[in-house]
Every structure is written in structure tokens, then in C-alpha cells.
């Protein structure tokens, strides 16, 4: 495998490749025998399955099924994060996006992922704003304006499905447009750009390095998801705008599922870097209004869309009526939100601790999952233990309750509450 570091399949790889001579595999790419994963012997699935003493393969099958399910393994250190975000999503719409390495082609996979991303983004960051830009025919086109309404963006994305990718991408034009869109953003918001870049080149009208310098000056963070390979200019772009943190900002897609995962990673708000927090002379306090809802018998006009609607929310400052939240009051410029919107972001700030897998043993303290009350498999005697046996128990370190893998994933991805800890009234 002869890899040019500039075009290596993943960012981690290219860095390690420079240091090693390629004999020793870096941890991320290690296979079972210590070399690269692709040098491993192929393991046939039917060799793994072996009957246990009673002639049943049930325990092994359940172990295999479990190993397929991916456990939630995110970093849970509570970081200070920029919760109020403004993001521009830049989509590559040049003719390289017609490539069929993803089925049916790159562009349709990208759009369906983007639609999912928009939904998830607003679900987890309700007080944030988004805008979408595409790179097509060497220019940047605005698809949707900066707004906090997910439906607008999803509609816009559905509309560009019919659009055929054409011409060359221009990273510089897109970034300049992002600069323009993020120019007026208030200082307490983050300014982020997420670029989906399919091409290996960019055709720019001017000096892109100057644009990168401008982005740095305006404190705009750029993250790139590459679809083909690493590109030097993106590397520079990410390094410069992320205070040298390339590892978390520039990724290249390895397979289709990975593309989606990378997209979804961008949903989590960025941690505030040390450099940033030290440089600032203080954090901002934002004045917000918590409007009360009214319901009328007659429709009245709302001040945001000038449409006659039943009910709505009354701005506590100027008493004008708006129909959707969160929004900025069109009359008095007060940010109007519900306290529930704020609560939605809490789990980014106070993440739930990860559960620990209980080691395989003969006897376990629990027989049922505390969440869903499914029965756990019994203990395994050491003599009959196989490689694929698991305890199927994942324990919360605080309340020492055991959960099954489905509940573990659900608790960390959706619920963000440990039922065991919440069910104990003695713990505060």
C-alpha cells in the first residue's frame, strides 16, 4: 500500500504514516494479530459458532448479535460548549457529486443525510440558527437563509434534489458567502461552517489563503467532511480555523454509514477551546423573554408572518403576538424562547456517565435489566466460556444497576437519564 500522505483515507492515518515506516499499525487500524486489519486472516462466520455443553448455540448467537450492536462510546467529559450556534452548511454540488461510489449517487446520499442532520440539529440545538449554501458551477448559491426554522431548510433541501450537480466547486466563493452570512451574528453565538466536500480540487477566483485568514480573524470555525480523500487546502483551512485541532475538524468518509456518523457528530455543539476562553474578556449574558401562550376564539394576526392564526405567544416586553418559537420578537428584538428549549441543550452540558460492561463470570448480582425488565442470560462456567460470550450487562457506576445493551444505547442516545439513579429517592 503506497500512500501519499496528502491523499490518505483518514486523517489519523496520514499523521501516523509520516512517523512510522508502515510496519507497525497505528491503534485505530490494528487487526487481531497486531498488524493492519486488512492483513488479517479472513474469519469465516461459521467457524466462530460452536455448540456449548447442552448442544445449544443460543448463548453464542446472542453474544454475536450483541457485538453487532454498537454501544454508545462518546466522550462524556463535561466541556464548556458554545450552545447558541449559527452554522452554515456548505454542500458540494459540482459534477464529481454524480459519482456512484455511494448508491445511487453521492449527491442523493448527501441530501438525505443533510435532511436528517437538519432535523437532529434543531432537535438538539433549538436556539441555534442554520443556513445552507451549495457550490455549483464555480459559484456559491444560497439555498436557505440563516433561520431557526427547520422546515424551511428541509423544504429547501428537498427542492434542490431535482437540481443536477454541475461544474467545478469553488471553496473560496463558498467561504466568502459564509463570511457574509455570519457577519452580523452576535458575539455570544458560535460561527460555524460545515463543508461537505466531494472534489479533490477547488477552482477559485482569487487567493483562498487570504479568505482563510479572514475567517480566522472573524472567529469562524470550519469543519470539513471529505468524500474522496484529504486535500491540502482543506487541511490548512481546518487547522487554521480550529486552533490547530485537525483531528476533530477534518474527516474523510470511509463508508456510507461513516458519512452519516460524521454528519451527526456535527450536531453536538463544539467545545469552547482553551485559547478561546482565555482570550475572551468574559462571557455574555443574553436577555431573553419567556412568553406565555394564549388561545383565542378568533384568529388574530401574528407580528412575525402577518398571518391570521388562532392563539400564539405574547412577547412579555411589547405584548405583540408571534406564532412560532424560538424567534426574535419582530417589534422589540427580544429573543423569545420557551424554558423547555433551554432544557433541551442541557444534556450536552451535563452528559450522562457511560455504563461499564460487567465482566463475564459464573454468577451475577442481577437477573433482569433495570430498564426494560428483560431477563439476562445466566452466568457461564469458565470451562465453557467462548470468545463471543458476554455478560450482556452494562452497569451504571453511580447506582450499580445493570442494563441490557438496548437500554444502554437508548439511555445514552435518547433519554440522557439513568433510570436507576432517578429511581432512588435517597440519592440527591
Amino acid at each position, binding site marked *: 500500500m503506497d500512500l501519499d500522505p496528502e491523499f490518505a483515507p483518514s486523517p489519523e492515518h496520514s499523521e501516523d504514516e509520516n512517523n512510522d515506516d508502515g510496519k507497525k499499525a497505528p491503534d485505530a487500524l490494528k487487526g487481531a494479530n497486531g498488524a493492519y486489519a486488512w492483513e488479517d486472516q479472513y474469519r469465516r462466520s461459521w467457524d466462530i459458532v460452536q455448540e456449548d455443553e447442552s448442544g445449544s448455540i443460543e448463548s453464542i448467537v446472542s453474544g454475536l448479535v450483541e457485538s453487532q450492536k454498537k454501544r454508545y462510546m462518546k466522550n462524556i467529559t463535561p466541556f464548556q460548549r458554545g450552545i447558541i450556534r449559527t452554522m452554515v452548511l456548505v454542500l458540494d454540488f459540482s459534477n464529481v457529486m454524480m459519482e456512484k461510489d455511494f448508491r445511487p449517487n453521492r449527491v442523493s446520499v448527501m441530501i438525505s443525510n443533510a435532511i436528517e442532520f437538519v432535523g437532529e440539529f434543531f432537535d438538539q440545538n433549538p436556539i441555534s440558527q442554520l443556513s445552507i449554501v451549495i457550490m455549483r458551477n464555480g459559484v456559491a448559491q444560497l439555498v436557505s437563509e440563516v433561520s431557526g426554522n427547520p422546515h424551511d431548510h428541509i423544504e429547501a433541501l428537498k427542492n434542490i434534489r431535482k437540481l443536477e450537480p454541475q461544474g467545478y466547486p469553488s471553496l473560496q466563493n463558498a467561504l466568502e458567502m459564509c463570511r457574509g452570512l455570519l457577519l452580523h451574528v452576535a458575539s455570544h453565538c458560535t460561527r460555524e461552517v460545515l463543508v461537505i466536500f466531494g472534489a479533490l480540487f477547488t477552482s477559485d477566483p482569487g487567493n483562498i489563503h487570504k479568505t482563510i485568514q479572514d475567517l480566522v480573524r472573524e472567529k469562524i470555525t470550519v469543519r470539513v467532511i471529505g468524500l474522496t480523500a484529504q486535500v491540502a487546502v482543506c487541511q490548512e483551512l481546518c487547522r487554521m480555523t480550529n486552533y490547530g485541532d485537525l483531528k476533530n475538524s477534518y474527516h474523510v468518509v470511509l463508508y456510507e454509514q461513516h458519512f452519516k456518523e460524521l454528519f451527526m457528530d456535527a450536531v453536538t455543539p463544539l467545545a469552547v477551546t482553551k485559547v478561546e476562553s482565555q482570550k475572551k474578556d468574559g462571557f455574555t449574558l443574553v436577555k431573553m423573554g419567556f412568553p406565555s401562550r*394564549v388561545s383565542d376564539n378568533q384568529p388574530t394576526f401574528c407580528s412575525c408572518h402577518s398571518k391570521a392564526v388562532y392563539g400564539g405567544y405574547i412577547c412579555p416586553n411589547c405584548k405583540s403576538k408571534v406564532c412560532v418559537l424560538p424567534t426574535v420578537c419582530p417589534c422589540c428584538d427580544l429573543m423569545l424562547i420557551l*424554558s423547555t428549549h433551554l*432544557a433541551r441543550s442541557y444534556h450536552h452540558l451535563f452528559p450522562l456517565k457511560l455504563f461499564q460492561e460487567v465482566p463475564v463470570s459464573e454468577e451475577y448480582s442481577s437477573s433482569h435489566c433495570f430498564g426494560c425488565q428483560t431477563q439476562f442470560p445466566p452466568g457461564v462456567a469458565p470451562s465453557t466460556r467462548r470468545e463471543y460470550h458476554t455478560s450482556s450487562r452494562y452497569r451504571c457506576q453511580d447506582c450499580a444497576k445493570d442494563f441490557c445493551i438496548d437500554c444502554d444505547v437508548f439511555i445514552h442516545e435518547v433519554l440522557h*437519564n439513568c433510570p436507576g439513579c432517578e*429511581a432512588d429517592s435517597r440519592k440527591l
Partner: protein
Amino acid sequence: MDAIADRAFTESQTNPAHKLVDETPSLLAVVVDINPLEWRKLEKEQSVSLKQVVSSIIVMLNSHLSLNSSNHVALYIANSYSHGAQLIYPRTESSKSTRFLHTPGMYRQFRFIDGSIVDTIEHLLNEQPDTLLQLIGREQGKQHIKGTLAGAMSMALCHINKIQQSDELNALKSRLLVVSISDDSTLPYVSVMNTIFASQKMKISVDVCKLGPSSTFLQQAADATNGVYIYITQPEGLIQYLTTALFIDPMLRPIIVLPTDESIDFRASCFITNKVIDVGYVCSVCLCILSVIPEDEKCPTCHSKFDHNLITKLKRKPKVLPLKKKDKELGDKNGTATPESA
């Protein structure tokens, strides 16, 4: 033949609402708050007792089961001091006692539910620790015991999630009913909010049957999940509420106008003074809500320092222009207000 193809038939094909109403089995998960202190208070004030409520709930569960043979029920308790939140029915232990099995003249499943629920609750109540007696005697408000309603709801959601993921049961629609008596102060805010969002994401309606003091959190829960929030004014008719207003199948929800409370208090409470406010300041780091700007210009929750310039800008009071004095100062300069004069 044309006459036979009458309106009812053609309509059911064109109108999508008709299609939705289907005999799909559903799961009803009920969470009952059995906070002993609150029940004591409630039994004193109103003519309602835990016994009545439990018997009404049992009727409700049974009627849910009788609607469709593949319907499921689950019952959780919350706020029990010695046990926290717990699953009551279906019991997981293999020791499913056989003593309820032979009751002439009664559907066996009903008898089984009645028996096991009553037994378990009785068992739990008898087991309440002695410290509880001391607690009741002591001054109110001093002892803070964490409410476990969020825990019970989390457990129910885990259970529902498992059902939604399993192959044979995934057609099962689920809903959650919370019978609550405690007030909001016992609830841990973040956990309750997390359960609300989780159920919203899973499209599970949370119905709330509220006795005792009204609860803003549960109102928001019902509102966010298209559920019903009912404040029970006449507890003696509880069974009526449970089997009508709180008995709306998930399949019917898109069609029915829900008998829920429309005006909901969405205002937030200040983290420092605990006052309910409608305009406040939000820390951009930890999102805590403040009604006043802290003196030391630091966030009370996360201790981040606020920008001084911004604080002064926020503190700035609106300037009042003094009225022009008409008579003698007409010729005087120009009469515009200066900050000193204001």
C-alpha cells in the same frame, strides 16, 4: 352493485382519517405517585384515598385489556420512600403465584392483575420504614426527598423502547399515563425535561391525571407530547376521568380534539431567587436563567465571568427626556437632554 358501493365504502378509501382508526394493539403504561406524605395531606383535605385511586386504575387497566386481546399494560410506582420507583406489574419474578388462577365468574387475566397489583402495593406500604413516621411528625419543608417520578417514567420509556425495537411487538403503539399528587418542587428539573424530550422523540403521548397541587412540568410534558393534562376537581369521579378523557388510544389522537388544558404556564423560574419570571437573563455558557444580574458579574452556576462592558450595557436604564420648560428657558441653548440632567 353500484348501490352497494355506497358512501361509507367509498369514503373510507378516500378519507385517510378512516384508515388511521385501526384495531392496532397498544400498550398502556401507568405511573402512580404514592408519595406517603402527599397522600396523607390529600386524604385530609379531599375525600380521596389511595385505595380509591388504585381501584380506579385497576378498572382502567382491565378495560384497556378488554378492548383488544393483544393489548398490554404496565404499572409503575414512583415516590415510594423506601423503594423509589419500581415496576409493579407485570412482575418479573418467576414466582407468579397460582392462587389467583381459580376464580369462578371472572376473566382470569383480570383477577391476576387485580391480585398482583393490590398485593404488591400493600406489601410496599407495609414496608415503609419507621423513619417515615418521624418524617411526618417533623416540620414540613425541612426534609427534602428527591421525587422519583422521572425515574419511573424513564423505566417506562426503556420498556417501551424495547418493545418498539422488538420484531414481533413493533406494531404495538404505546402511551404513558402519569397519576401525580406531589408538587413540582420534589422533581429534579433536568431529569424530568429529559424524559419529556425522550417521549416526544419516540412519539409517545404522556397523559397526566393530576390530583393535589398543579404541576407546570407535567403540563409541559402533556403539551409537548400531544397528551392530555387533566386537573381532577372531583376525585370521587376519578374512574370517569380515567376511562373517558384519559383513555384516548394513540391511533385516535390525530382525529380527536383532546380534552386538555389549553393555557399553559411556560414561564421559567430564576435559578437564584426561584421567582417565576417572563423576561430574564440567560448565561450563554450553562444556560441558567437569572432574574437579576449578579453583583460579582459571575454566573452563579458555572462561575464564568461575564463581559463587563456587556453588563453595563444591560444595566443601562432607559433615558427619560425631561420635558422642556416652556416659559423662561425657551431661548436657552436648545433644551435637549444631557445624561447629567437625566
